[in-house]
């Protein structure tokens, strides 16, 4: 085995000592600093871009959700049609009870969001018997002397009769002979003469149906409306319910 030549260690160290002032060293150093800056800058920029992209995506998702076309259906102006003798309106389990006849406007409208029309296929009257007779604490006596005889004045009036399990109704277009038709309570848009789905467009005024619900036989009933409709797929909506008694 042969030993390497001894060229002296002190001399070699000196030979490889970096000269910080050497032009090459300066060039390398500035290059390295520039590269690091570029890298950091790139990382930060990419991170911000991803963030912005994510935010944009989130925003778009939210916007898409907000602008989805849908049906707005609700009962408005619900009121006791015939005045009662009792001074305070009857209540059942904290909920107001209408007696004999309740008058209301059923609002059916596009929710005004999105551009897709809403096609309402049917509007059904749903009735559930709460009690077969009016609980004693409910005083439903109507004040017959307060009724106002108008005859038939209104047009486009829906009258729904609830008698036990039987629900029936008619649509009065006007008082003229031949201008009133029985309706199907499962779909009040369907009369004996025609069935019509209604298409609701975003900018259209809401459609208001004048509806009177009549408790035609004794009992306490819960009544609400449902609608089957299409807007990018079939859906069902329902109104809040109310109680009516006779």
């Amino acid at each position, binding site marked *: 085995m042969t030993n390497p030549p001894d060229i002296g260690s002190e001399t070699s160290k000196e030979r490889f000592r970096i000269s910080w002032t050497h032009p090459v060293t300066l060039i390398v150093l500035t290059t390295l600093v520039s590269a690091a800056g570029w890298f950091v800058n790139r990382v930060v920029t990419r991170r911000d871009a991803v963030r912005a992209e994510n935010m944009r995506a989130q925003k778009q998702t939210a916007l898409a959700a907000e602008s989805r076309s849908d049906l707005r259906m609700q009962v408005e102006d619900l009121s006791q*049609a*015939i005045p009662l*003798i009792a001074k305070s309106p009857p209540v059942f389990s904290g909920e107001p009870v209408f007696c*004999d*006849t309740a*008058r209301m406007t059923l609002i059916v409208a596009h929710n005004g969001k999105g551009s897709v029309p809403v096609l309402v296929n049917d509007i059904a009257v749903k009735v559930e018997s709460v009690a077969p007779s009016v609980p004693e604490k409910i005083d439903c*006596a109507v004040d*017959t*002397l*307060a*009724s*106002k*005889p*108008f*005859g*038939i*004045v*209104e047009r486009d*009036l829906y*009258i729904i*009769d609830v008698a036990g399990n039987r629900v*029936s109704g*008619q649509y*009065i277009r006007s*008082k*003229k*002979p*031949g*201008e*009133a*038709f029985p309706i199907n309570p499962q779909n009040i848009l369907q009369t004996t003469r025609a069935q019509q789905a209604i298409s609701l467009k975003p900018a259209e005024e809401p459609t208001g149906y004048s509806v*009177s619900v*009549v408790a*035609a036989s004794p009992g306490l009933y819960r009544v609400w409306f449902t609608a089957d409709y299409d807007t990018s797929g079939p859906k069902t909506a329902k109104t809040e319910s109310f109680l009516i008694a006779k």
Partner: protein
Amino acid sequence: MTIHPWPIAVLLSFSLSLELPHQTLAQSELTGQAYINWYQDKFLGGGKRQSYTPEEIVPIKEAEARKDDRAVVRGCDEVLKRDPKLFYSLPMADWVKSLAYIERGWAQYRLTKEPKYVIEDEEKAAEFGNLTAMLDVIDKMLGKYQGNESAEFIDASPLEHYLRIGAELGNSEAARMLGTSLWPNPLTDAEKAYWALVAQGATNEESGFLWDYTIHNRYELVNQNDLESVISRLSPLGGLTPHGPHNLPGRGIAATFFADASLRREYGFNFGKRAPATRDASPDALEIYKFHRAVADLIGRADAYLLVPGSRTFADSHMISMNTQELSGLLSPSDVVVVRCGPLTHMVMVYKVNRKASTVSFVDGLFEFWQPSHNSCITTFDLAPFKYGGYLATVPLADILPMIQEVITYRDRAYEHPAKSAGPNYVTLSQFEHSEFFDYFRVSEVVEKDVGPDEKIVRYMTGAFQNKIFFSMKTDHRFRIQEALLSIDRDWVGEESQTNPLANDLVKSFVVAVTPASSADRSRPAAQAIWKSQAQVPCGSDSDSTVSEAFFGKVDRCVIPLASGNLVFANLKDPYFDRALHVIVTTSPSPGAFKR
């Protein structure tokens, strides 16, 4: 609003002030005339009937405005030929055609100057129940009988027919003419009496004099039985009405004629009737009742009662609750019924109740309410022609009963006068109505009218010689007689040489019955003098005349001072007789101060 206080409003409008003297009061506090004024102002456009031109007549009117009478005739011909089914309804077809006849007649007259065209077409319009045409036809036919030259071409023989149309449709002038002999009237006395009383039945007059005068004279011509018989035959009410349950009074002669006349007027009023396009201010059922009651009170022939299904209690004895079965049994022509099916409420007058067929027929220009297609409470409905272009809406009684909210029915006035004594200075109405005089002469009350805030006139009728004897009481609000007036046909009283014992008895008994106890010692000698035809009782301390001289018409006036007031005998002309004997007992210092 649907019915129909219009006929009453129209009837009243000629005589009622439309001012509201008590506008500061709430309506619930108003009564009588003030309530009527309030109601008319709020719900009936101030008592003025609104008119409209049917769509079919509009182009005819436009042609008339252009003075294009040929176009008017063409337009009318087209309307008259048109199939009735092409109109809004069959009743409306009749009504529009009646208007077309009138327009055509006048247009042809303007084109030809031939007046026959007018009467020919107006006669056709009258057949369709057009009262305007009917009145013109009657006027022309009566003109013929009166020798009017312009009516010479007219055949007046059908006058009775057209008077009947008018009377059937509630025109009081036509009914009055049917009751007179001012034309060759072929009707029997009983029929004349019937129509004369229908004419007066629901008219308003301040003091009730005309009604009193008419009923006295007609009762004298035909007896009560004949009158009741002719009511059964001619009146849509079919006769008098017995009293009902719960102290509901019946309907005697006066209330029957009031109800009869009201029903006829309602029938006539419904021709061409059209509902308002919108819900205007409308009275509620109670307000409607109060209006009918105020009108009945004002006219004074009947009283309005309110029948309500159920068991609700009312403080007012005129408002009666009863079960549906009782209501069903009482329902009768001229009743006003408020009915409801769910949210639909309607008011209508009953024309006919057919208990055998279990149906009710209504006078109803707004018949649409009864269509089973519109009204789920109605199973069957018939709109059938009735008289002179009018229609009745008929539905099953069983359908109606559950719908009834209230029934307003005209019944006898309960002339309830408190039985309290008012002391020695007054005779009360109750005391008079329980007197021997009242009983012996079979006296009945005819009419009672408020003529001032504290003044009331009550008129009576004896059971016989009704057209010879008229008497009335003027009272204050406590029913204390202030002035009693007896007016007798002077010729019926007789002369001293030939006395009428019944007249003597009547006058003597009357004086005794109406003189207050405090004055009895002063009036009794006069009464005895008349009874015994003695002449020695002087008329006051400074008079040379005697009571008998006045009684037999030898002196015009005899005044006997009483404790407060006077006993007066007077011979004069009055609204009843050219020569009348007045016997007046006053309890105030100014005899004869009260207007009758």
